[in-house]
């Protein structure tokens, strides 16, 4: 029997039979196009001319001096078109959908970053787009709902379960079983059934590849650590992937601890979860003693997911990557720190990674380097952080 798409014990294809031919078709198409010169040339043009790649690797001198330790570089995925790393994956998958002759893409979204990116790619490449978003999230992020509609996408508020990202993902999977022939489910992270974790990782791996060549140019050596935030884990996987074989480069993923890993209001999957099977994959999940998936919590809607991609679970199992929890309060502290020292307002997701970099930098030598992936920009979070701090901004 097939063992494809396994990462150690994790991964797999735990999906209804109705979807099996669709994922097999996707696997075959991707297997072909990933080595197709024309496809890759088209994607590179989209990356460079449309999304603004390569993204900058910026030496955060003020932050480095303030902390007084390792040199901190920021990988500026926040400067991409649509404001986050999500565009890398959706351009790849939507172009693939088009090559496969699909008419429509569907996507799940939490805060709306992936939904906006998917709507953008669909508008550009002339496909229909429908986005599933938890009803709670459509209210919290109504501006993003309007952005998606402006881009021509249809947004479905999901009313089942906790009405957040987990439920939006379930509903997008259900929709795919309803209409599978002309539709590709453009999943937003390195999760779901094989081949999605591999496809999304490959399209995001441009992040790590660029970091490597950019840092070699600036410093003449590899970084000592690369740090990224992890929800499902696409920006982290994209950051880590090219460094997995470079054993001296520490790979650090920052999970959303919410109000703390010892409270139920957390989304730190590696810290608090157990092996489970959900959303098409075996991986670590936050769940009850009876194996029910629990609603999770984080200040960051983008990290508010009860699972983590299977390759991350594997990197954790073999101890190649380290996963650390960062709380809401710590992320907000880093959000302000980076805004004030560098004039860069990071996404609250990325602020989790910034926090941990700021924590370990002073303990490291001055000739050592850390690269932090800034997965997105923080404009979307400004109102929420104001509310968190009790500031009335009259929005």
């Amino acid at each position: 029997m097939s063992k494809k798409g396994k990462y150690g014990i994790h991964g797999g294809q735990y999906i209804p039979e109705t979807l099996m031919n669709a994922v097999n078709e996707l696997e075959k198409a991707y297997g072909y196009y990933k080595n197709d010169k024309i496809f890759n040339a088209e994607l590179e043009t989209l990356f460079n001319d449309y999304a603004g790649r390569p993204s900058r690797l910026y030496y955060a001198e003020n932050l480095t001096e303030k902390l007084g330790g390792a040199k901190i570089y920021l990988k500026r995925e926040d400067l991409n078109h649509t404001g986050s790393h999500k565009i890398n994956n959706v351009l790849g998958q939507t172009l693939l959908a088009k090559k496969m002759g699909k008419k429509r893409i569907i996507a799940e979204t939490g805060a709306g970053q992936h939904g906006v990116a998917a709507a953008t790619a669909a508008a550009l490449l002339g496909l229909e787009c429908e986005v599933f978003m938890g009803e709670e999230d459509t209210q919290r992020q109504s501006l993003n709902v309007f952005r998606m509609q402006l881009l021509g996408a249809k947004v479905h508020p999901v009313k089942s379960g906790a009405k957040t990202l987990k439920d939006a993902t379930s509903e997008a999977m259900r929709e795919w079983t309803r209409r599978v022939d002309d539709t590709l489910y453009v999943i937003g992270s390195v999760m779901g059934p094989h081949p999605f974790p591999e496809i999304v990782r490959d399209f995001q791996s441009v992040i790590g590849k660029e970091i490597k060549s950019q840092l070699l140019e600036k410093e003449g050596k590899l970084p000592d650590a690369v740090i990224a935030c992890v929800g499902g884990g696409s920006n982290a996987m994209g950051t880590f992937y090219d460094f997995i074989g470079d054993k001296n480069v520490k790979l650090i993923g920052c999970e959303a601890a919410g109000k703390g890993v010892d409270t139920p209001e957390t989304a730190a999957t590696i810290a608090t979860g157990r092996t489970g099977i959900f959303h098409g994959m075996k991986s670590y999940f936050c769940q009850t003693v009876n194996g029910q998936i629990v609603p999770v919590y984080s200040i960051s809607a983008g990290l508010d997911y009860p699972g983590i991609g299977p390759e991350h679970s594997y990197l954790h199992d073999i101890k190649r990557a380290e996963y650390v929890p960062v709380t809401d309060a710590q992320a907000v502290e880093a959000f302000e720190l980076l805004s004030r020292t560098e004039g860069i307002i990071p996404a609250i997701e990325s602020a989790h990674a910034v926090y941990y970099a700021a924590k370990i930098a002073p303990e490291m030598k001055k000739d050592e380097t850390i690269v932090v992936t800034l997965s997105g920009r923080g404009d979307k979070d400004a109102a929420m952080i104001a509310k968190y701090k009790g500031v009335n901004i009259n929005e």
Partner: protein
Amino acid sequence: MNKISEIFKNKKCLITYLTAGDPSLDKTEEFIVSLAKNGADLIEIGIPFSDPVAEGEVIQNAMARALSENIGLDDIFNMVSSVVKKISVPLAFMTYLNPLLTYGYDKFFKRCKETGIEAIIVPDMPFEEQDEIKEFTGKYGVTIITLIAPTSLERIEKLAKNAEGFIYLVSSLGVTGTRSEITTDINSIVSKIKQITDVPVAVGFGISTGKQAKDMTESADGAIIGSAIVKIIAEHKENAAAKIAGFVSEVKTAVNGSRRR
């Protein structure tokens, strides 16, 4: 011959579904008896899961109601041990993998054997992932029911060849739930399966009336009804037994009227 296959001998079968613990396990037991006494040939008991991705709203809501009672697998097995003394039709579990993985596969299938669960239907376990539990289903003699969908196409041969008990033919694209019309060409899929195997074929997803069940069993060996029964339970709650009895006997009569093989 497999124990499950035997129920299809010389007759068209009616397979019914309900969710354990909706509205309570005591009531589930009462409803199972009602189903069995009024014509169900096999009863699927759904193990509630927080996020059932193959289910439509009706069964999602039933599972949410059951989970709000905080029942676990031990409670469900206790109910099964009790109800098997009152009925003679075989029982199957319909479940997602995660609650089983958490409970422990060995312990789960051991208890299936002890309590008399004959088969298991797992919507999030396609053929390629059966290795997940095969060691244990084999050890304890529990039949894994194979699902075939309208999208299975060239997979049908591999799936049918390896099927045991009965084949669960998914009538339509999408998730569970009642449908006013089933547009898939069921007859042609059934005849394709029949060329490969003698394992009986039962059609499920979207069947909610005696007429639909009769139509499906013109070519198939059985009809599976889930959401329509769960809807009755949702509407009549603890008083649903009599309504279930009336509905099931009506459907059973219709199925009996289908052309024999």
